[in-house]
């Protein structure tokens, strides 16, 4: 397998290769959570144990369901916001009683109901790269050589003339931020995997702030892969 090959794309079936759907870990997670998740007393107790008080939000029930059915899948805030649209809480019964004395939920049933089995393509598109871009917001560009490295990144991204001209750290960051937003909004690089897209901003941040060469190498590899003008689902990363 070559350095610039996209193994995941090659393994896709013909219809997926033809339609090029966006791949996301969130679809895997959604697929593993059952259509209906009953919330019994023990589940309710577990959910409230991680928060304050006895009130329960859809967010906390989804977090519980994901931890139960797909353990070890960390969910970011953006992902959770998207997942919340795929679930709803339902009550069956007139008066549902939470009884800590008898450790029961009586008078009806509480369920978490899955509304969609896959994430909407448009939602995934809007999430491409967003977490990587967020990483840029918290990065410090003040270290030695950071501005030079920022220029290198901007040259590879292209369309960053304003950022290349200025010496202001703030301005460079703002240009970089804006460029990445546009790049992912139009999906200029045809990245079809949300996790891979999110890594772009992270690699850029790591290279600019710490001079991390592995991160820069990955970023350059991805850039080279875009020259084929093919959808990108995966790449061989440098550790």
């Amino acid at each position, binding site marked *: 397998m070559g350095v610039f090959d996209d193994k995941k794309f090659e393994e896709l079936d013909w219809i997926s290769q033809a339609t090029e759907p966006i791949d996301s870990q969130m679809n895997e997670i959604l697929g593993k959570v059952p259509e209906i998740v009953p919330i019994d007393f023990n589940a309710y*107790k577990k959910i*409230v*144990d991680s928060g*304050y*008080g*006895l*009130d*329960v*939000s*859809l967010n906390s029930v989804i977090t519980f369901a994901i931890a139960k059915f797909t353990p070890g899948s960390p969910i970011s805030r953006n992902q959770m916001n998207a997942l*919340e649209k795929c679930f*709803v*809480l*339902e*009550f069956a019964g007139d*008066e*549902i*009683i*939470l*009884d*800590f*004395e008898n*450790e029961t*939920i009586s008078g009806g049933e*509480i369920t978490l109901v899955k509304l969609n089995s896959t994430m909407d393509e448009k939602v995934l598109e809007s999430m491409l790269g967003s977490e990587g871009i967020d990483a840029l917001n918290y990065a410090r560009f003040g270290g030695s050589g950071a501005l030079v490295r920022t220029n290198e990144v901007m040259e590879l991204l292209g369309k960053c003339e304003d950022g290349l001209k200025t010496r202001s750290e703030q301005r460079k960051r703002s240009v970089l931020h804006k460029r990445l937003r546009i790049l992912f909004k139009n999906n200029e690089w045809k990245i079809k995997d949300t996790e891979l897209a999110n890594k772009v901003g992270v690699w850029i941040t790591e290279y600019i702030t710490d001079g991390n060469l592995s991160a820069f190498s990955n970023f350059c590899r991805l850039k080279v892969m875009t020259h084929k003008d093919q959808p990108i689902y995966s790449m061989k990363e440098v550790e």
Partner: protein
Amino acid sequence: MTKLLELTENFIMSRPVFCLQLDTSGRNIKANTSHPKHIYRPKPISGDPLSELVCENYREHFDTKDGHFQIDKGEIAHKAMEQIRGSIAEFLEKNLEMRNPRQSKLYRWAYRNMPNGSEINDVLVMVYKYLRSFSNSDMKANDLNHVNNGIAILEAIMEKYEQ
């Protein structure tokens, strides 16, 4: 505060049974812990101002980890004691026959400088009980002879603790 603590002795707690409610958006389940299904609120002994005060300060909170309600009897007695101290100052403000009772030495002592300690607190509890025997819950007295007596007692206490 011994008397106040005694009054909290028989306090129990609400049963940890709640009616759950789902909001219209289907995104939040509410379990109103301040209104459990079988709520317990202590009933004061009729005509006993101390019992009324202690019952008024009854607070229970639900411990999610342990799954039952808890009360802090010391805290209830302490809150009631604070209220007694405030009520004594209020009594003076409302019943001292002066144009501005807040300027009086006795009021300022009661409001700011009244010492805190188990001995004086026990005394103040009894003074409060006496003051309430001729005053309403807003500490407005209805018997002038008793008012003068009450003020004299407070002055004597002030002198003792100022020495």
